[in-house]
């Protein structure tokens, strides 16, 4: 029965995801068997992605670090309950998103930014920044910093659910199906939230866009 469920889930996922899920499941079985050190491999593999999702939801580096650690500790404590119905990374994402949403609800009135620097040497960001401005040197850094703050500000104006969908889809690259699993809602709901969130973001970031 479990095998059918796993097959049903993996059919909608890409082959790379499926291979990844299988590899994760093997490590999880080792941890469940008592090999606690095997969990470190999962931490090393997913810490940046989990940090990324939490950071993009909170826009605060310190909160993101704490919540990422919480996520791994919760996952470690509950790993005996992981039955393999979904992939490990979906399960881990769900823990991270739920922890973050709970944290955001608690600290809704006292949120503030604590941003990481944009790595301007990365090819993709370099290309985008180059297309956005002709400025160089310190002026460019100032412009990028301003854009970064404006972008985070626009994201924080979204509701928590809309922000989560945009972050998971546009920044973390999850599919609609995966987001639906993580957020425990339908694919239609994910699409609808994504569309609405993008409309709002477009209205906020219009001055920085060029057609």
């Amino acid at each position, binding site marked *: 029965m479990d095998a059918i469920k796993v097959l049903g889930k993996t059919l909608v996922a890409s082959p790379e995801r499926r291979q990844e899920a299988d590899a994760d499941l093997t490590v999880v079985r080792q941890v469940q068997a008592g090999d606690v050190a095997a969990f470190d491999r999962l931490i090393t593999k997913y810490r940046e992605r989990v940090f990324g999702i939490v950071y*993009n939801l909170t826009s605060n580096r310190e909160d993101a670090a704490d919540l990422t650690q919480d996520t791994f500790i919760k996952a470690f*404590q509950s790993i005996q*309950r992981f039955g393999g119905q979904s992939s490990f990374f979906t399960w881990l994402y769900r823990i991270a998103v739920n922890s973050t949403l709970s944290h955001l609800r608690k600290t809704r009135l006292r949120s503030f930014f604590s941003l*990481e620097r944009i790595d301007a040497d990365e090819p993709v960001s370099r290309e*985008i920044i180059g297309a956005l401005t002709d400025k160089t040197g310190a002026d460019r850094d100032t412009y990028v910093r301003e854009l970064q703050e404006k972008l985070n500000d626009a994201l924080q104006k979204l509701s928590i659910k809309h922000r989560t969908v945009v972050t998971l889809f*546009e*920044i973390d690259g999850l599919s609609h199906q995966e987001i639906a699993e993580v957020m425990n809602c339908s694919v239609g709901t994910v699409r609808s939230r994504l569309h609405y969130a993008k409309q709002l973001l*477009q209205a906020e970031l219009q001055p*920085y866009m060029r057609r």
Partner: protein
Amino acid sequence: MNQEKRPITLEDILRLKRAERPPAAFWDQFDRDLRARQLTALLEKRPWWRSAAVSQAWSLWSRYHLPLGATAIFALTFVAMREYRPTPEAVAPHSRASRVAIAAPHANSSAAGLPALESSSAISDEQPTEIAGEAMVAEAVSAPAAATLAPGELSHLLTGDARVTPSDVTPSARHIAANLAAAEAAGPLVARRLLTPATGFEMRVLPARATTTEPLASMSSPAAMRNSRLLSAMAFATEAPARSNENVARRLSDEQLYDSGAHRFGAKANSLTFKM
């Protein structure tokens, strides 16, 4: 030049967020902190309700929470409706006072029970002194007894339950009654002197108390009310036209009275009539 013409979309701007990465030193600190917290979590004893077995059982039950809750509410409602019976107080809460008055004659027949408070009016000089003595005992006992009554007993007293038996009378009341009877037997003259003022006092005071009437008796019957209403309407009907005729005659001037087209004029002792 080509880069300037490249359109910038929302997706491009959002992709910049991927480039927001912490430095490598951050991960060293992160690993150290996580290790420390992991060890703390390992040493920390988890409560039994958060153990894997309980959590699994709870998650299995979670799919039945809604139907079970609905069934419980339905069952509770059904039992509550089945067991519900309106109490007499709920049906007629205002009837308690009248019941006191109604129950008093029944209490008279009971041998000096506590509810005989209202029955003292029925005692006359001609009644045997035993009954009078017992009634006095009941009177004497009633005040302290009422002060020490439990709520249930008080309601029992107020409702004037006729099922009060002699065993309900307190031992002290019985003792006083016995003493009085003995005193009367030993010296009738002394006893009469002792009792006569009390009896006289009772006879002077109790008629005032006995004016308590039954609420239903004070109500007039519907037929009497209807009769009085009709009679009052008739009385108004006979007086009102005369008064209005006088008013009309007072308001009319002499010219109006005679020059207008009044072709028929009638005057009676108490009325004026015009026909135009």
